[in-house]
């Protein structure tokens, strides 16, 4: 409840029309609707914790990364590159490239928000692929019995109403909690997991990337094409370059190829 207390003290004009009680109601509604995200994050973060220790980080360092960064793909990639001996600068650059997608998400998210700079600073920290989708498509006014906030009718509906800041903070904070607690659990259990189990965890990162990619690729030709180009170019570049830089270059080039080849086809994304 810490976020709620602090946000209710500092809110500016956007939340002026909400009473403290309404803010609390929206915050707890956000917590409830964000719970599935937290449950999904927990095992992924656990895998991150295990892999980070295997890459030579201490438990303290590992938890600190999850607390300060809060980005699944970026953190997994960092640990992956670390165990390959990549220098910090390559890891940071690779992170920047992967995180550019957040820029796009936040830009479209901002259409549903009316916030002052402090609220933007708080909400921004919690923007992930999953919280963005949940917040952007969810209808906080929907009755609890409506069940899935992401049902098709909701997704089709034009989203014009501004979201209550406390609702967004609720969704974001429970997701963050799931991520940090999962990381902590990973550092606790890393030692007791059998070797075979730990080896199989290497696939989790790739499964996560694939699960993010497939639904979009099935819908839009440009997505599948650009991803295929990214993989092919990365394979080519990684024969001459360290893997961190190969990822960065392949991403930049493949997205440019996509703009040239599909142009208008990208706009429907």
């Amino acid at each position, binding site marked *: 409840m810490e976020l709620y207390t602090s946000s209710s003290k500092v809110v500016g004009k956007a939340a002026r029309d909400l009473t403290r009680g309404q803010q609390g109601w929206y915050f707890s509604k956000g917590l409830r609707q964000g719970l599935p995200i937290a449950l999904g994050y927990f095992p*992924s973060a656990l895998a991150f914790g295990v892999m980070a220790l295997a890459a030579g980080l201490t438990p303290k360092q590992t938890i600190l990364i999850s607390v300060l960064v809060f980005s699944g793909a970026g953190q997994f990639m960092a640990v992956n590159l670390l165990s390959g001996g990549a220098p910090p600068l390559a890891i940071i650059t690779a*992170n920047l490239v992967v995180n550019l997608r957040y820029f796009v998400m936040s830009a479209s998210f901002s259409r549903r928000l009316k916030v002052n700079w402090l609220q933007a600073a708080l909400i*921004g920290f919690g923007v992930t692929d999953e919280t963005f989708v949940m917040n952007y498509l969810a209808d906080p006014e929907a009755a609890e019995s409506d069940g899935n906030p992401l049902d098709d009718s909701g997704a089709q509906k034009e989203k014009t109403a501004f979201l209550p800041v406390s609702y967004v903070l609720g969704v974001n904070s429970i997701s963050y909690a799931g991520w940090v607690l999962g990381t902590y659990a990973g550092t606790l259990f890393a030692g007791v997991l059998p070797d075979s189990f730990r*080896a199989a965890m*290497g696939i*989790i990162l790739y499964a996560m990337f694939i699960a993010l990619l497939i639904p979009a690729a099935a819908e839009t030709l440009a997505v599948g094409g650009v991803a295929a180009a*990214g993989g092919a170019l990365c394979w080519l570049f990684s024969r001459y370059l360290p893997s961190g830089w190969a990822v960065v270059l392949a991403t930049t080039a493949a997205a440019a190829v996509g703009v040239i080849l599909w142009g208008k086809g990208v706009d429907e994304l």
Partner: protein
Amino acid sequence: MTSASFWLMVLGMGVVTYLPRTLPLLLGSEMRLPLWLERWLKLVPYAALGALIFPGILTVDPARPWIGILGGIAAAAVAWRWKNFVVALIAAFTTVYILS
């Protein structure tokens, strides 16, 4: 990894993760980008996913690259059929665990 380079890495990661998330919210919905840049930004995540998946997935078990491929196919099949994130992770994990 020395403590100094670890801190540099975490700080850098924190900044390059936080800024792309927060800047558009601070700038508000007034922000307009040139069309080509908007298209490029939209495609970057998918290009990055492709580059991250391949050839990295071959190194899940470096001695037997096909294990990573089969795990990836399991994840793709579940993600395509049921669109469920967690189940896709479990399917891939189970596949690799059984094979190795």
